[in-house]
């Protein structure tokens, strides 16, 4: 009987002990589902307070995060929520916080400055939202003052939109030979330049829609050995502007990971075009484009939506040219905030350092996406 009672006590004690260990020092999976922080995290230091705010954002615990802010009197929880997830549907709306980093900047006994970098994952890639937080000591805890970025209110107005819209009546599924048809738009590759990069072979180029109708375009390339046998085939995927109005030009970039240019004998380029319904609106002005040299080479500028409709996502693609006008690099960036009418939105496209010195000019185009059901 005594041995049994002892066994019962041991088992019970061990169970409680294991649960305590597992809760105070959770493993990776437990931390992932618990929002990245154990019960230990508290706001006892500026960095801990910033990390706690980061994990509450990661958990999308908006009320808990908002209530922890020191300057919450200056704005509502809704404004705090929209500042992070966007005032209108954009890439931020469905983004998930992949990770966050905290960088102490400066601290005194009563206040501190910390940089919080939020690394968001969206359907088209990742972006980093950097916020410089000011923290104030409140007893034994540090409280964050959130740097709210208010969205500019567009004055109420009526904007007449009477640009052209094309609609296409497609041929049926039957045989197309020898009957009246409307063939695909005529497009032409006006520039093509394969380069060797560390990650593999990259093909840079530009495509012109020389027709009078809008064209859906994409480009497929096949690397071939000297004897013509194919090595690899890749497409432009999202490194192109797929809808081209008449006489519009788009850059395109096709990457072949782990390939070597020396092995390539020839490249077969296949521009693909199709008739699509399209609208000549919205018109996006790309203002204040500026090339910045090393040490942090980039192209900066701002987009201004000249139409009356909200553009939910804009995709900026830039061709960089050398002195002789040859394309030496193509880079792109997505805007993670929606473009409101007449409201400039800044962008910044990093440039590879090894190419920065050879770049002397650039040409930028913008592709746009408007959410489904918005006509």
């Amino acid at each position, binding site marked *: 009987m005594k041995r049994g009672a002892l066994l019962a006590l041991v088992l019970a004690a061990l169970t409680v002990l294991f649960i305590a260990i597992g809760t105070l020092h959770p493993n990776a999976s437990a931390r992932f589902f618990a929002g990245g922080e154990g019960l230990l995290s508290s706001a006892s230091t500026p960095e801990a307070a910033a990390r706690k705010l980061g994990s509450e954002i990661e958990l999308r615990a908006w009320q808990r995060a908002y209530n922890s802010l020191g300057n919450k009197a200056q704005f509502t929880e809704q404004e705090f929520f929209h500042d992070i997830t966007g005032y209108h549907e954009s890439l931020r709306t469905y983004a998930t916080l992949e990770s966050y980093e905290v960088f102490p900047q400066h601290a005194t006994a009563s206040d501190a400055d910390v940089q919080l970098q939020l690394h968001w994952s969206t359907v088209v890639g990742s972006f980093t939202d950097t916020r410089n937080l000011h923290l104030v000591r409140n007893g034994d805890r540090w409280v964050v003052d959130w740097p709210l970025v208010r969205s500019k209110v567009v004055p109420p107005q009526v904007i007449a939109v009477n640009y052209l819209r094309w609609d296409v009546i497609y041929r049926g599924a039957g045989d197309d030979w020898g009957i009246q048809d409307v063939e695909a738009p005529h497009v032409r590759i006006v520039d093509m330049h394969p380069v060797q990069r560390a990650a593999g072979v990259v093909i840079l180029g530009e495509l012109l829609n020389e027709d009078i109708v809008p064209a859906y375009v994409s480009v497929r390339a096949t690397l071939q050995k000297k004897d013509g046998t194919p090595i690899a085939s890749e497409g432009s995927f999202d490194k192109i502007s797929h809808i081209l109005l*008449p006489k519009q030009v788009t850059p395109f970039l096709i990457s072949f990971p782990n390939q070597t240019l020396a092995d390539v004998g020839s490249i077969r380029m296949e521009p693909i075009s199709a008739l699509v319904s399209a609208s*000549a609106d919205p*018109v996006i002005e790309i*203002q204040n484009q*500026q090339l910045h040299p090393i040490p942090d080479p980039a192209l900066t500028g701002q987009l201004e939506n000249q139409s009356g409709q909200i553009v939910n996502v804009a995709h900026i693609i830039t061709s960089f040219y050398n002195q002789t006008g040859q394309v030496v690099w193509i880079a792109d960036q997505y805007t993670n905030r929606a473009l409101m009418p007449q409201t400039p939105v800044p962008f910044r496209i990093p440039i590879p350092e090894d190419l920065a010195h050879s770049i002397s000019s650039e040409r930028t185009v913008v592709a746009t996406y408007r959410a489904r059901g918005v006509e």
Partner: protein
Amino acid sequence: MRIGWIAGIASLAFWAAGAAGQTLQVPKSVVAGAAISIPSTGSGAAEIYIVGPAQVLHQKVQLGETITIPQGALYAAGRYLAILSGQSVRGHWAFDVTPSPDLEKISFLARPSRLPVGQANGVSGTVYLFDAYGNLILNPVPVTFQYAAPGGPAQERTLTTRDGVASVEMNSSSRQGNANFVAHAGGVTSTRVVEQVPGDPCSLKMTAQPAGNQILLKTDPVRDCSGNAVPDGTIVTFTETQGDRQTTVDVPLKQGIAQVTVPAEPGARISVASGVVLGNEIRWNR
């Protein structure tokens, strides 16, 4: 396997001999879709198979009578085997089915369906001639091509098909609009509409006026070198350069002109282009 071979050869030998007394007089060639009469000798019931890649037929026959393949039964042109198969009889004969000479359908490939004005040999027309059963008519047939476009004389050419095909190239005229491209042969006509569209903008000229703290840029009506108005929606690119900073905007034509406002930058150079055509340049000194 060895026994199978021997049996096969034996039955072959028997078959070849048995057929000598009973036979068909299959014609060397017949016209597609025509009724066929095949006199036969011998007696007894048998079956006839007509086998080719394009068609397969079968009919029960009575040897000694004339075998009739009804009209329209055998219509696909090509080479065939007529196979007689019966209890004690078997034989096969090769023959041809030739296309019917009566032209029924023209497959007229006119490309492109859109082309700029003033293109020499810009439009190509290729015709394939078929009979009522879809057989390519291989005998030479005269075909007349007519291309009537706005702002230009009608062009007409007559050619003769070779192995069922004929091809021609025509010039597009100087004025935009729909052209009718007609192919005519053996009483059958096929028409295609070819849209002649304006060429690249010829003279691209813009003006600039102040508009508050902006500059209103506006092009003159954009036309091609033949004076045709470039269609609405065509992209015109304005570029304003000030030092190492640049503003660009792609503007679609609306009622023949492109108009946009850009920030007013003193000393800026403003240029305009459309596709591969460059326009004038303005230096903004206000």
